[in-house]
């Protein structure tokens, strides 16, 4: 994969490859869809030069090289990145206005193939444009390619798992990196009395895939789960620093973020707590994970009671349905639980939570059917692509101030 633009880095063909690019692009597109992130996409459909696969070598290396060169003007666009797919399609993705660069690149592609009489299609059909998050499905279909094969986990093996030495180096790197660009805002919504959804709060999190792609492209940050968990502590501190930046909290609405127990008891959190505006107190949710809770139950109980005393809501996230009988949320004394939707989820799983359905956040809501399933079981909070879509279509609906979730859960 190569990256172009403001944070351009050297290509790393030896460790990435087209399949890796496909995986990362798919992740980026899904993240845009879920977190409602706007991006522009241009695709050079070189795969169309091989319509029936009878002439698999029609796409010559110089075609790829020229096509990439043609996209070079887009390198100057904000957050621009370039992906080479296994199908030989080339995808440029960027943020914001770049009209001159876009039209220059498009003209260059058309000009490049204009004199090729053997071309099976017109040069104009080699160029396609999309916008995210609305066209996420169409872009994902391109990523999957003509065989419809998504990039799989197995294809990630070319990345090097994080080890202790590289973790230490990466932690040092994170201390000085501009982290604001990796923050994503995921809306959590609740049903309105008159129908539809309203924003309850925003969950802020780092886009781990993009962060890895930009800051440590040779490493798979999540291959060693315990090292990744350790890394999340460093990320916690960076998130707290970002939230504590001048004016950030003053302009913020109800929000949530993931945090480790150790971070919740850190000086950085106490500083964040010091800065929290009166109006926001009671409207901040802290998301905890089961393994963190159990790694030090004594510290968890201390942190839980401290957070409660300071007016924070506590949620359990990252819990599989199969774990619900083992970790009753009521026993943990938490306010909310994030439950990821899956086909296997059954009403009995909700009963196993031993908590009121309105305290459940159903995550991964990708369709209307899932949303309706959750609402029919009394679930009160939702997140996922469908929720982002619904809120984007009705941007003026609810800001959290309309019906603060804390009033319902108090």
């Amino acid at each position, binding site marked *: 994969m190569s990256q172009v633009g403001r944070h351009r880095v050297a290509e790393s063909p030896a460790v990435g490859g087209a399949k890796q690019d496909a995986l990362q692009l798919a992740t980026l597109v899904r993240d845009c869809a879920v977190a409602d992130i706007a991006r522009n996409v241009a695709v050079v459909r070189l795969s169309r030069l091989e319509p029936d696969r009878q002439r698999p070598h029609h796409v010559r290396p110089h075609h790829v090289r020229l096509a990439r060169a043609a996209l070079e003007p887009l390198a100057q666009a904000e957050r621009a990145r370039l992906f080479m797919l296994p199908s030989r399609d080339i995808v440029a993705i960027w943020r914001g206005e770049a009209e001159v660069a876009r039209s220059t690149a498009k003209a260059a592609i058309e000009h490049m193939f204009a004199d090729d009489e053997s071309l099976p299609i017109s040069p104009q059909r080699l160029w396609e444009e999309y916008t995210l998050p609305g066209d996420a499905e169409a872009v994902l279909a391109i990523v999957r390619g003509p065989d419809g094969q998504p990039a799989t986990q197995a294809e990630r093996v070319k990345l090097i798992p994080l080890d202790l030495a590289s973790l230490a180096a990466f932690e040092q790197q994170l201390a000085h990196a501009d982290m604001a660009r990796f923050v994503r805002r995921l809306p959590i919504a609740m049903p309105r009395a008159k129908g539809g959804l309203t924003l309850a709060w925003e969950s802020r999190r780092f886009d781990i895939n993009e962060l890895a792609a930009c800051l440590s492209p040779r490493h798979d940050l999540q291959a060693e789960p315990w090292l990744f968990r350790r890394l999340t502590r460093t990320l916690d501190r960076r998130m707290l620093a970002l939230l504590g930046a001048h004016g950030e909290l003053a302009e913020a609405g109800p929000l949530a973020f993931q945090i480790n127990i150790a971070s919740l008891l850190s000086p950085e959190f106490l500083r964040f707590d010091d800065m929290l505006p009166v109006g926001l107190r009671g409207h901040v949710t802290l998301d905890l994970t089961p393994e963190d809770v159990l790694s030090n139950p004594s510290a968890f109980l*201390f942190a839980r009671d*401290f957070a409660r005393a300071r007016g924070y809501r506590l949620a359990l996230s990252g819990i599989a349905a199969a774990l619900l009988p083992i970790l009753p949320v009521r026993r943990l004394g938490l306010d909310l639980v994030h439950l990821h939707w899956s086909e296997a989820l059954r009403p009995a799983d909700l009963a196993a939570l031993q908590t009121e359905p309105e305290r459940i956040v159903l995550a991964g809501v990708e369709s209307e059917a899932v949303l309706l399933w959750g609402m029919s079981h009394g679930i009160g909070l939702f997140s996922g692509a469908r929720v982002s879509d619904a809120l984007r279509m009705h941007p003026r609906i609810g800001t959290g101030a309309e019906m603060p979730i804390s009033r319902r859960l108090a």
Partner: protein
Amino acid sequence: MVEFASNTGQLTEWPGRALHGTPDAAAMALLGELSRLLARPLESQERDYRVAIILRLSRLMPPAPRPHHRRVARALMQDTASWHGGQVFSLVDGDLVLLCQPRRAAGGAAISASTRAVEPEALPDMLRQLLRVDTPPGFDPVTVWPLATHGQALHDDIRARVVQQEGRRVMEEEYAGQTEVMDVLGSFISSAAIADLLQRQTAVLLRGGGEGRGGLLPIYQEITFSIAALEGRVASAASASTDPFLFRHLATRLDLRILDILTQAAGMGGPLDVTRQDVPALHINLTVQGILTADFARLAAVAGAQPGRAAPRVAVEVNLLDAVADFSAFERARAVLAESGFAFVLENVSHLSLMLTRPGVFDAALVKLDWSPRLAEFSGAERATLHAALREIGLERVVLHRAETEAALRWGVASGIRRFQGRHVDAMLGAARIVGCGFAKGCTLRHCIERAGATNALGRADCLNLALLDAAVPQGSALSTSVRSEAIL
């Protein structure tokens, strides 16, 4: 005058440390402030009404107080101080003193909505609640001293403390650098010869009944690496277990070593031989990741059930944290264990995790509950929850682990638990061997316990009765009618 809910004016003694150390600057500052306040006329003192709230963090149960206890408690006390014209003094040993002049917020709320400060009347109970898990039974970590009536006594105590100060300083946890230290340890684990650091501990079934049927029946021998010895060998600057996440990562490296060592030792007849039938079953600790490796498959192949071979007498202990962290991987690992004929044991269940989770749902062959004196202190609803959790697991499947004292055994027996593992059990088994061994003339109890815990030739070299050492107790004695009567359990 503000009325405090409890222990107003209660005086307790400072910890009796007759050691010399550095003068406590905060204590000196506190003394100066107290002297100034006490020098005022009594009427003025009563009118102003000032109190000292003392938080005895230094008396929490180890490993507390941790830096976060001090940090958070200080933040809470500082907020109260800011709103009530006070000051917080951090003493060298970790104790905190809040000197303030309480004045009620409008409406008398415990916590001021506008300032989030806890009112002085509510602060002691809030601190007690926060610290309840780490407070010794029967000890009140918070005392309140009204200066008008007890100011001079407080002054005298603080002054005595300055003289007697031990000078124990509370160290901040240093996360930066921890990764590098663990990297050194991890590299050592992967590359050095560490088989001699494997240690063994026997668990027993405590049987009742007469006619020679009572006593200790060995049920398994757990083989683990001594982490303390590992740290000592690399002269580690930090404890491996300081960061639970990094420690779990290190455990995956230890897995590969122990799997390799046990595979090599199979069929050799030593204490690490997983194919032996004449000694109690072997238990090893593995991570979920470790069970899913090819190295585990190799061990299972040499120890596993095959035609003409007895069923494997090996169990794998999985940490509760590991099982919860990636439950789908855990389920795969459990299927691998079942296929290999190895029993699954859930370990690292503390009294707190027993209250927060339902380990019984795992349906493990055994669940190892770590002993804590706190277990004996539960009362009311907590005690009911505890016993319900034990019943859900099934008392016949509970092993009271880290049973280092007689108190642990006493509590376990009173609670219906019959399986025990720990240093107290080691001593009981050692005593039985000394009595029943014909070669023990020159042995001390300590020698016998240490040799039983060793797995390498050097550690066992001076024992002249290795068969008895490996069997844990004399065969046919009142302590053990048969070591084979319980294959795994």
